[in-house]
C-alpha cells in the first residue's frame, strides 16, 4: 500500500512539554482515500492532523505527502519556513472555527491563497475563486464579509478557500463541531462531494454516521495511540477493541445523515 499511498506517516511522536500527545503513530492514506480519525478529546487526533501539514512540527518520525518527505527527531534538521510554507500550500486544511479572514470579503478570502502564495494574477485568481465558491453553492455571497454569513456558510467558504490552492490532500479538523445542528448537513454534503470526486482526505470528526458513510478507512485513537484501524463500516459496526466499543456506544452509528440541504 505504501507505494501508492498519498500520505505516509511513520513512528510519529509529539509531546507538548511533559505531555506525550502522539506515541508512535503510523498512518497511510491511499490516493483518493478518505480516512476518518475519531476518538475522545485529548486523544491526539487533531494534533496528528496538524502534523500532516506540519502546522505542528513533530518531535520524531517522518511525514510524507505526495513526493515530499520530512524526517524529525535526533539529527534531523528542521525544515526552514519557506520549505514548510511550500509544503503546506499543497495540503488544504479546514478548521473547527473556520478561521476566515474577517477583514476580507468572501471572494477575497478565497482569492488570498492563489494571489499571495501562488502569485496568480488577480483576474485569474478571481475566476478560480468564483468557481470554488460556486462549487460550495455560495457564489452569490462573494462580496459579503464573513461576519454576515451563517456558520455553515462560513465553513463552506473556508472549504472553497482551501480548494482554491488546488491541493492534493484535504484535512478537516472537526469541521462541523462548531455548527448548529441544522447547519451540519450542508457542510457534510460538500465534503461528501469532494470524496466522490476522488479527493484524498483525512477527516477528524465526531459525526460517526457520516464517517461510516464517507470514509473508507477509520482510525480510532486514544491517549496518543491508534487503538483500532480498519474499513470504516467494519470498525463502526463490529469494533474489535473494548475501548472502541465503549467510545462508539455514545453515538448513533447509522441512520440518516443530517439533511444535506445547501439552501443558502
Amino acid at each position, binding site marked *: 500500500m505504501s507505494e501508492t499511498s498519498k500520505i505516509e506517516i511513520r513512528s510519529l511522536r509529539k509531546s507538548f512539554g511533559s505531555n506525550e500527545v502522539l506515541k508512535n503513530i503510523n498512518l497511510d492514506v491511499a490516493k483518493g482515500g478518505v480516512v476518518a480519525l475519531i476518538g475522545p478529546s485529548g486523544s491526539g487526533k487533531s494534533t496528528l492532523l496538524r502534523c500532516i501539514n506540519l502546522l505542528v512540527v513533530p518531535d520524531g518520525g517522518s511525514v510524507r505527502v505526495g513526493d515530499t518527505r520530512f524526517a524529525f527527531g535526533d539529527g534531523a534538521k528542521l525544515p526552514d519556513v519557506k520549505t514548510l510554507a511550500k509544503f503546506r500550500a499543497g495540503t488544504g486544511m479546514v478548521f473547527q472555527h473556520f478561521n476566515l*479572514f*474577517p*477583514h476580507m470579503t468572501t471572494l477575497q478570502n478565497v482569492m*488570498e491563497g492563489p494571489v499571495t502564495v*501562488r502569485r496568480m494574477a488577480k483576474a485569474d485568481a478571481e475566476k478560480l475563486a468564483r468557481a470554488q465558491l460556486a462549487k460550495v453553492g455560495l457564489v452569490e455571497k462573494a462580496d459579503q*464579509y464573513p*461576519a454576515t454569513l451563517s456558520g455553515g456558510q462560513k465553513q463552506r467558504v*473556508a472549504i472553497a478557500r482551501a480548494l482554491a490552492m488546488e491541493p492534493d490532500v484535504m484535512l478537516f479538523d472537526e469541521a462541523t463541531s462548531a455548527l448548529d445542528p441544522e447547519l451540519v448537513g450542508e457542510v457534510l454534503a460538500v465534503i461528501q462531494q469532494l470524496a466522490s470526486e476522488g479527493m484524498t482526505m483525512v477527516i477528524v470528526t465526531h459525526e460517526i454516521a457520516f464517517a461510516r458513510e464517507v470514509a473508507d478507512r477509520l482510525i480510532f485513537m486514544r491517549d496518543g495511540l491508534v487503538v483500532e484501524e480498519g474499513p470504516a463500516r467494519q470498525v463502526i459496526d463490529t469494533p474489535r477493541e473494548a475501548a472502541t466499543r465503549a467510545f462508539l456506544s455514545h453515538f448513533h452509528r447509522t441512520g440518516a445523515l443530517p439533511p444535506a440541504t445547501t439552501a443558502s
Partner: protein
Amino acid sequence: MYQWDFGILWSYRWLFLNGLGVTVGFTVVIVVCGLLFGLLGAFGTLSRFKALRLLALTFIEAFRCTPILVQLIWFYYALPILAGVEMTPITASALALSLYGGSFYSEIIRGGIISIDKGQAEAGGALGMTPGQSMRRIVLPQAIKRMIPALMNQSIIQFKNTSLVSVLAVPDLVYQSQVAAHDSYRPLETYTAVAVAYAAILIPLTILVRRGEKRLAVGE
C-alpha cells in the same frame, strides 16, 4: 480683578507661528520615527530568538520607566560625554522623544498583534503563507484597526511632549511663548493662547480619527 489683554499678543504672531511650525514638524518626525521604533520593539518582543526579545524588552522598559524630561537632558548632556557623539538640541530631543514614544508604541503594537486569534495566522500558514506573509496580509491589517485608538492616544501625548524640548532651547511653541511672555509681561495671556493653540490642533484631529475608525470597522 485681572484685566485680560489678548490684543498685545498680536505683535508676537510671527514668533508664535514659527514656534507652532516647529512643534508640528517636530511631532511629525517623532511620531513617524517613534512608530518605526515601536514596530521594531514589538517584533523584537515577539521574536523567536531570545536575544532579540531581551534586547527589545530592555529598550522598552528603559524608556518607558524613566521620565522623558530626564531622557531629554541625558541625551543632550550625557551622551556626548559618554559616547563622544555631539548632537544639536534638535537631534538630541528628536531622538529621545522618538525612543520614548517608541517604547509605548511597542507595547501597543505588540498588544494589537497578540490580540488577533491564533487561528488567523494558522489559516494563513495552512494556505502556504510564510510567517511574514501571514503577518502582513492577515494579522497586521486586523491588528492595526485595534491599535488605532491607542496609537492615536499615544501620538497626542507625543504632540504635547514636544513642549518639553524647550528645556534644550529648541524654539518650539512653548519656547517662543516663554520669550513672548518675558518680553510682554503678559504670561497669563501668552500661556492661555498656547493652551488654546494645542487644543485647536488636537481636537479636530481626534474627530478625524474617530471617523476613520468607523470606516475601518467594516466586516466586524
